């Protein structure tokens, strides 16, 4: 048994030229056929698919960005519109107030004017009345003088009573 261990033909260690030849030929054929008809097309298809997926992802990302940008723009517009509205409202209020103020002032002015006019008129009338009184008094004085002139002719006592009476008259006038 012992010598069999040494003598056993370990033939797989001895490369057979026939097997080398067939391995070479078969491997070359498999490599050629599979490389051309399977591995290269698969490689290209996988690469194309990966690129497609990447492109789709990129596009989706871009769309999302566009969307958010649009949204931001909308918000901006809305905000601007709101600001505009507030501004317009404020302006309107201001205008209203200024109009009221103006109107008030105008009315005040008008009133003052009316009062002044009235005063002026009153003054005029007073002046007129005064003039009239003066004229009256003048006329009266002339009348008194006339009457006195006449009364002189009748006596002093009567004269004095007459003058007093006349003065009284003037006063009452």
């Amino acid at each position, binding site marked *: 048994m012992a010598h069999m261990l040494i003598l056993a033909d370990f033939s797989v260690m001895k490369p057979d030229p026939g097997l080398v030849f067939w*391995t*070479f030929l078969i491997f070359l054929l498999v490599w050629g056929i*599979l490389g051309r008809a399977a591995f290269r097309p698969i*490689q290209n298809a996988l690469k194309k698919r990966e690129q497609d997926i990447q492109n789709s992802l990129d596009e989706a990302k871009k769309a999302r960005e566009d969307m958010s940008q649009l949204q931001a723009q909308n918000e901006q517009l809305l905000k601007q519109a709101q600001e505009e509205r507030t501004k317009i409202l404020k302006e309107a209020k201001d205008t209203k107030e200024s109009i009221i103020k103006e109107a008030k002032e105008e009315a005040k002015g008008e009133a003052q004017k009316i009062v002044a006019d009235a005063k002026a008129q009153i003054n005029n009338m007073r002046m007129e009345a005064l003039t009239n009184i003066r004229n009256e008094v003048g006329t009266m004085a002339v009348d008194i003088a006339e009457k006195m002139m006449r009364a002189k002719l009748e006596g002093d006592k009567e004269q004095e009573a007459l003058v007093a009476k006349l003065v009284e008259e003037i006063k009452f006038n």
Partner: protein
Amino acid sequence: MKVISKRFCILLAVTVLVGFNQYAFAQENHTSDVGSDQTDEEEGYDPVGVVMHHIADANEFHVWKGVHLPLPCILYAPGHGWTTMLSSKLDHGHKAVDGYVLNHGRVNRIADPSFPGGEVEIGHINHHVEDGKDVYYAEYQGQEYKLDKPSTLDGGLLGGGITSFYDFSITKNVFTMLLASILLILVWLSVAKGYRENDGKAPSGIQSFFEPFFTFIRDEVTVPMIGEQKYERFQPFIMTVFFFVLFCNLLGLIPIFPGSANVTGNLAVTMTLALFTFVITNLNGNKHYWEHVLWMPGIPALVKPLLSIVEVLGLIFKPFSLMIRLFANISAGHIIILSLIGLIFLFGNNGQNLGGATAGAIVGGFFTAFMNLIELLVAFLQAYIFAILSASYIGAATEDAHHDEAHAH
């Protein structure tokens, strides 16, 4: 958990049964050996001989007890020319055709010119030991004629060498390789068809099963080893190497026809595969690579020639390690399984002791089941290692100069 353990039991049972198949194989072969070999008969069960016979290449495919698939023999003897025939014509060693005889499944040749040509009946094939070497003789008309083994390329270092003829037959290994290649081509062509038909769609069917393999080899082997820019050129080669080795490994694990051939456990096969890697690596080697091999920059001039010798030897050692690693792993696996099966015959005293044989069958069967699972792992692992190392050698040869500078600093 329950399902897993149940499945494991089934797997174990299948592997044990498979082990018994191999038992049947071994026994059948052994009895046929006994018939044609007197020396073996005297010595009883020869475990090493049986194992070596089972892992060896053969010119006929043993299917079942007494059933052999004949394979075409293509033989060349210098001065005699080419001879082609089916191995069935040699009648398992009972007939000689033009001096060619089937000895232990392999074609041998009687170089003696006095031996008659054409088809002749021969007697026993006798085994002798001469100067520590196995020599076989064929009996014919009371005379013994020496049988030459086919030539081998080991240069006589391993007991082989150039003999009187060369065997270019479709042997068991070549047959299995062809089968693996046909399977590979069928599988990958249908996968490629899926990419044409499902263009722009999600992968389906066999395409989605094999796509992860492709992307695994691309993302874990070729791209990291060769680089993003250059990997595409080498991806088909690495894929072919990986799947060729894997399919041959897996077919080798099937213990019955059409499997069981020890293809990747044969040095001729791994040598040829390693040669492909060697040639591709060095044909694609750039200036930077050869500069580093022949005249390493950045070191003292005195050390340069020394390193050159080491580097040039390294060129050969790299594919050499590929060759030995795959061969040794696969052969070792086959040898262990066959040895465990051999326990049945050893314990059973070669059929004399039924109790011993039963014990051997139980022990050997369970260990074989365990080994088969490990071998399944090894089949994938060795294919992966062959692929990744080939890719790393190619990557080293095609690496750009500035990359290396970046690493150095």
